[in-house]
């Protein structure tokens, strides 16, 4: 933390209004585009429409207070439950595989005298420069039997081609797009924190007779734990919001329903079913669950990972 300029020092007094002027644009935008929409959504989630009189004519419906009705309806909605379970499955595949690969690649890059390190680093980071929606498009064609190179290769070898877009595989196929797009960025975050470990630590470990693998397991991994935790939290947040990948794949397959993930259900409710009230309630629930999960995860791993370091 920086020390603030001392008031009443030699110089002129620091203007009292200056910091507020610097903050003003951000504060206005923050209020208008984050706080107000959140408040408005919470408000809407407690409303519903009701017919006035005979319920005919353009002004025959009014908005009334609905209590917890929308929440009760949302929470008991089997479609939301299904999509939540699906996203949990998706996260259970995506987060460990993506971070596991990111950690593996970061450790390999950090191995002394490894070949092609620069080429591998740039190539693995490259998907980060590809927008998620275009990544989904590329993989979508990869999965599409009539165009897929995998199908072509399998046919050439006389093997049965896997049905990537079928109901059995679709979860893994969608997760693969997330792994592809995210592994490089997370690898670089972990790699960067590996590079900041002082070399003397390794010297000491080598003198003690550690092999490179042992150094990786017992020295490097514990020391990059904070980065892994950071990337996990971001990955969990991203997982719960998954929307673009399945939305992009949906024109190519019948395996992805309009309520395949919770956010897709919010979209369907708000824009196709025209039920903004239950969409609002679902949005609030997703936001709360995301916050609780990421804060809970942070707390849990902080205790586990750093409990020992404060000795």
């Amino acid at each position, binding site marked *: 933390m*920086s020390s603030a300029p001392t008031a009443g020092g030699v110089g002129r007094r620091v203007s009292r209004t*200056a910091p507020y002027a610097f903050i003003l644009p*951000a504060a206005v935008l923050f209020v208008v585009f984050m706080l107000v929409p959140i408040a408005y959504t919470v408000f809407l989630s407690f409303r519903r429409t009701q017919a006035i009189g005979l319920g005919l004519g353009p002004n025959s419906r009014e908005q009334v207070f609905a209590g917890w009705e929308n929440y009760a309806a949302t929470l008991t909605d089997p479609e939301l439950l299904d999509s939540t379970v699906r996203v949990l499955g998706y996260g259970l595949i995506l987060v460990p595989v993506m971070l596991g690969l990111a950690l593996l690649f970061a450790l390999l890059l950090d191995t002394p*005298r490894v070949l092609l390190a620069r080429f591998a680093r*740039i*190539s693995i980071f490259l998907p980060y420069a590809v927008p998620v*929606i275009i990544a989904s498009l*590329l993989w979508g064609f990869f999965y599409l039997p009539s165009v897929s190179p995998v199908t072509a290769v399998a046919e050439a070898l006389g093997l049965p081609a896997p049905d990537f877009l079928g109901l059995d595989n679709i979860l893994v196929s969608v997760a693969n797009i997330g792994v592809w797009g995210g592994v490089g960025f997370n690898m670089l975050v972990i790699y960067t924190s590996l590079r900041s470990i002082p070399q003397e630590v390794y010297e000491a470990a080598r003198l003690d007779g550690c092999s490179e693998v042992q150094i990786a397991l017992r020295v490097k991994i514990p020391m990059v734990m904070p980065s892994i935790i950071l990337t996990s939290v971001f990955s969990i947040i991203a997982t719960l919001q998954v929307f673009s990948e399945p939305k992009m794949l949906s024109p190519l397959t019948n395996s992805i329903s309009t309520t395949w993930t919770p956010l897709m259900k919010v979209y369907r409710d708000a824009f196709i079913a025209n039920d903004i009230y239950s969409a609002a309630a679902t949005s609030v629930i997703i936001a709360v669950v995301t916050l609780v999960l990421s804060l809970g995860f942070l707390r849990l791993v902080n205790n586990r990972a750093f409990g020992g370091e404060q000795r």
Partner: protein
Amino acid sequence: MSTTLAPGATPTLTAGPVGGARRPSGRRPPLLASAVLLLGALYCLLPVLWVVTAATKDNTELFSTFTFWPSGSLLDNIRELSAYRDGLFWRWMLNTAVFAGVGAVASTLVSGMCGYAMAKYRFRGRNVMFNVLLAGVLVPGVVLAVPQYLLLAELSMTDTYWSVLLPSIISPYGIYLARIFAAASVPDDVMEAARTDGAGEWRIFTRIALPVMVPGLVTVFLFQFVAIWNNFMLPFIMLSDDTRFPVTVGLYSLLNQGASQPALYTLVITGALLAVLPLILLFLLLQRYWRVDMLAGAVK
């Protein structure tokens, strides 16, 4: 989030000698490690390589010839894509450049000023603001798209450029990064000296703080640029007139039509290649500005 080792702190090695005596690892390159890295690189390059070859094929070749074998129709495909509805594709590219370029510049400025003020001034409400900001970092951004739509619909502002541009400017994470960078790089004593010389606070910001914050702000800019370029849900929800679409939403709508007219697949694939090239070029050119250490350092 201040739970990590202080940067530069000498870590104590608690692990004792493990595994007994071992042969020294020698001087030869670790081939297995290199091979695994190469596999990872191939996995990441494969779809990009595929789109390059696929974009060189015409409609029938796409479904008939071997997938990784290039053909000669790339220029025809680009011509056909450019002709599609009077160059709608290039309109989408231009829209994307406006959304991501203007949005990221504005976002960087707003974040830079706010982060600087939070790092360098002590004022009433600073801690409250900082905590609200931290909560903002954790609030799922995409979940906000629907609330933002509901509000802008109330103001009859949907389906305008502003509806996509304005929400993209505010970035709690960008402010957070700018604050860390300002705290680390803007020297208090120089600010004090400038004040003694009679410089105003705005002048101190533009003449002293901004120049030293440039490397950090480039990171914020790139980060925001990619985030806006990547954001699909916000423009997807906000815009209905397809002349305002960014290229991502445009390609989605094209693929959607392609589901009934596979002839459009060639256009979609060529569009994907053309859309991804500028960003990959930008990324390769600005490689050294990808200060991931800063992004990672945000928790420290």
